[in-house]
């Protein structure tokens, strides 16, 4: 960095500052955005009857890269972890329930990591929502292109658990 011309460094610093000041959270889904609502929430061609719940914006971006999902999202802002003092009240849970009831959602898809904290959050949300909306969870399985032999046992066991009819 010391070898770079001063203007370049200044532009870089300004950009960082601008990002810090401008980027906030979408009022609806809590994804990162510079405006009130994010691009996905504003986009009318997206299926608003489906809400995919993720822990943070990085997970959302990963799902977006698949270009397979055409519904909307809801970013929780973390996972339930009593050890770290994180209970549901610190996450965007109330807003999720409100959205589901207000927008008349048909399906909530839980896309959280299969850790203890992720599963706890999934089970908690499922219980909360399941009386008025269909709740599903993404499957855990083998990465495509990997040979069975090279999958580790934990992944294999989970894939086996989530098996279905063909």
């Amino acid at each position: 960095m010391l070898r770079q011309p001063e203007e370049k460094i200044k532009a870089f610093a300004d950009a960082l500052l601008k990002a810090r000041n401008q980027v906030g959270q979408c009022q609806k889904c809590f994804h990162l955005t510079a405006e009130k609502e994010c691009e996905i929430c504003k986009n009318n061609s997206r299926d608003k009857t489906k809400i995919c719940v993720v822990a943070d914006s990085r997970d959302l971006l990963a799902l977006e890269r698949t270009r397979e999902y055409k519904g909307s999202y809801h970013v929780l802002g973390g996972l339930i972890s009593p050890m770290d003092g994180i209970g549901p009240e610190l996450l965007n849970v109330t807003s999720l329930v409100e959205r589901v009831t207000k927008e008349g959602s048909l399906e909530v898809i839980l896309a959280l990591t299969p850790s203890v904290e992720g599963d706890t959050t999934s089970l908690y949300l499922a219980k909360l929502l399941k009386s008025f909306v269909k709740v599903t969870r993404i499957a855990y399985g083998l990465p495509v292109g990997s040979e069975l032999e090279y999958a580790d046992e934990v992944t294999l066991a989970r894939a086996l658990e989530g098996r279905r009819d063909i």
Partner: protein
Amino acid sequence: MTKKRLLVIGSNGIGKSNLLESVELLGSLRSHRSSSDQDLIYWDEKSAFLKAITSDKDQIELELRRKGGRKAYKNEKIVTRQIDLIGPLRCVGFSALDLLLVRGEPSLRRHWLDRVVLQLEPIYSDLISRFARLLRQRNQLWRRWQDNADEDFEALLDAFDVQMALVSTRIHRRRMRALSRLQPLADAWQKRLSKDAEGLKLHYVPGAFLEEGEEELRFRLSIEKQLFSQRVEERRLGSCKIGPHRDEIEFLLNGVSARRFGSAGQQRTIVLSLKLAELELVGEIFGENPILLLDDVLAELDPIRQLLLLEAVGHKHQCLISATHLEAFEGDWKADSQILEL
């Protein structure tokens, strides 16, 4: 090593156990002493490096780093799956700590059994660490939310109950299965070591009421129900009373508790029988005799038991034995052994 048996002799703190522990680490990828790599790396060093060449000419290397993350190599090729590494150096350890197995804390017996299950099913380590995490999270939940228990709190407990019931079921069943496989072997060794005077029974006392039969779902739902109904008590005590963390394994000699009524000598014989059973079971399953690591323990046995162990192990297993003094060994142990003085 030039002979089947290696006696490592040296004063305290010179590194005898280190040598044995490194073999254990290369063979099982874990140490009985510590579960954290931080504790295995020398003070002030950034990493630790282990290398072994086996008689099959396999070269196994393991690198531990203070920052975390391990790197393993077999014949100079990087290895990413545990299973590819475990095998050439499969071993069973026996240390002075094991002598407390019969009369010590129940957690000692649970850890012993867990090490056996891990040998049989490496995936078990995932269950164990998951359960430990669930328990910690659940206890924290009680601590933090006890004062303002609302609907949310109950819902969170429900979420933990579901997961704990599933993981508990799997741990209970694996422990039960391993014990029933060890049972006949341990009993046979006990009979042999006691000249047919004593029969040994390994009695599993689970930390939850377990349903009969094989159906996992019924097992699981029953544990879920038990977790639910202990909540009032859990609130009072601040800890969960149901689950594999409350398991106990009783050793019965001719039907009588060896922990409460066995003599010191009988208790040591039981430990020997258990270790020999473990050695036999691991050998039976993998079709290859595991290496026996005797860390500072042989000298703790009286001459008769030393000879019994020698006779039992014979020349089937490669042995690494550590002690402070060579005099502690019976003559037969010294003969035909390679001696390494540190």
